[in-house]
């Protein structure tokens, strides 16, 4: 999967977990926190993405990422390993 496709997948997860967010306006450099997503929902979004990609990444690795681009990067890196 390309990074663009993974970004789309992250946006799908955001839509599913926090339906009130209009993901059309979401930019990759934004953080989930900027979008007003609370920590529990952020966790759910990340888990949903991992499920979709059939990946098992320790959640603490997502603790280091700063924004959606970071999430996409980590998912991309692990999915291509």
């Amino acid at each position, binding site marked *: 999967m390309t990074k663009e496709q993974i970004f789309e997948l992250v946006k799908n997860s955001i839509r599913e977990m926090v339906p009130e967010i209009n993901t059309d306006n979401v930019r990759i450099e934004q953080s989930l926190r900027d979008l007003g997503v609370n920590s529990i929902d952020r966790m759910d979004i990340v888990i949903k993405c991992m499920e979709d990609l059939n990946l098992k990444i320790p959640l*603490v690795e997502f603790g280091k990422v700063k924004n959606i681009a970071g999430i996409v990067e980590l998912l991309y890196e692990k999915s291509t390993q």
Partner: protein
Amino acid sequence: MEIGIEAINIFAGRAFMDVRDIFKNRDLELERFQNLMMEKKSVGLPCEDPVTNAVNAAKPIIDNMTEADKKSIDLLITCSESGVDFGKSLSTYVHDYLGLSRNCRVFEVKQACYAGTAALHMACAYVRANAFNSRALVIATDIARAAAKHTYAEPSQGVGAVAMLISRNPEVMELDYGANGYYSYEVMDTCRPLPEIETGDPDLSLLSYLDCLENSFKAYCDRVDGVDFRESFDYLTFHTPFAGMVKGAHRKLIRSLMKVSADEIETDFQKRVGPSLKYCVQVGNVYSATLYLALASMIDNAQIDNAKRIGLFSYGSGCCSEFYSGIVTPASKAKTAKMDMARHLSDRHALSIEEYDRLLDLNMEWTFGVRDKEMNFNAFSKIYERYMEGRKLLALKRIGKDWHREYIWT
């Protein structure tokens, strides 16, 4: 051989602050208040410290014992991340004021919020191996640092202690022998790098907690045959920094194990986890003592009409975690009812924000390392007179020039 908790009691201070009021007065985002799922948090008075809380939690247990049974306690472990000295452990004071036998080991363990679990299992192993039918007393006692003012840590962090008597007569909870799963690794999530500073990355801590829950449960399943998360445990009790976190963790674990609808998850959460949260939402995070506050809440509030298995998850930042299980019975409920813990929680002073701020300022005068200082009970006389005086509770009176702490019975 049956080993486990013979008696349990909590002490959650004499005053509380409404968590919603903290959010309002500190201009914190109210949306975050809903995620916390917290109602009140216990607030300490200047004359309350980890020693007084520990003693005040354990005293009713000790008072209910015969002299001979009391003498059988030859191990006292305090568990804390809120020590008052780098060398001398809280247990030395606690041992003295509880009037325990001098033929007793006293020491302290530390591993953030996991410390209570560490001590519980060490004490159980000790009682199992001991030739003399000894008992052990484990007391988890912690306080939030007053310096947390104006942060998102402020609304959730409380003060309190839980005392547990460990013996071969586990009337409160018998541990399932050998049914433990551990998961630990180094991570810098939350910490107390200076005596008055609590800091860290709460997001990282949440993620680490979730990784640990999944992996310690997996390690538990590796050791115990035929475990089914939905069927094997009648109730679940998790370390509860705030109830919202437990809700997220329960959902995450279930979803990682099976396909279940959101409604089913919610019903399961209310039924199997809900009873453990009732006391926690009224006290706040009491660190090493939190899981056992949740356990006390579970036993007092769950329907226990026959033997029930409880799954327990302990997490301490840094980090160490454990999933284990135990058995409770209607006798457990009868035993904990004698301590009247719900009444203890309802019998606390409701602080106004002004009183709360004033208490935080007063508490800042009693930080780590203070010496040659006398307690001015007049500064908080209204709460002291109504909620402490004449109740035979332990209170800090003075810290000497040599840093020695002196306490009085109120």
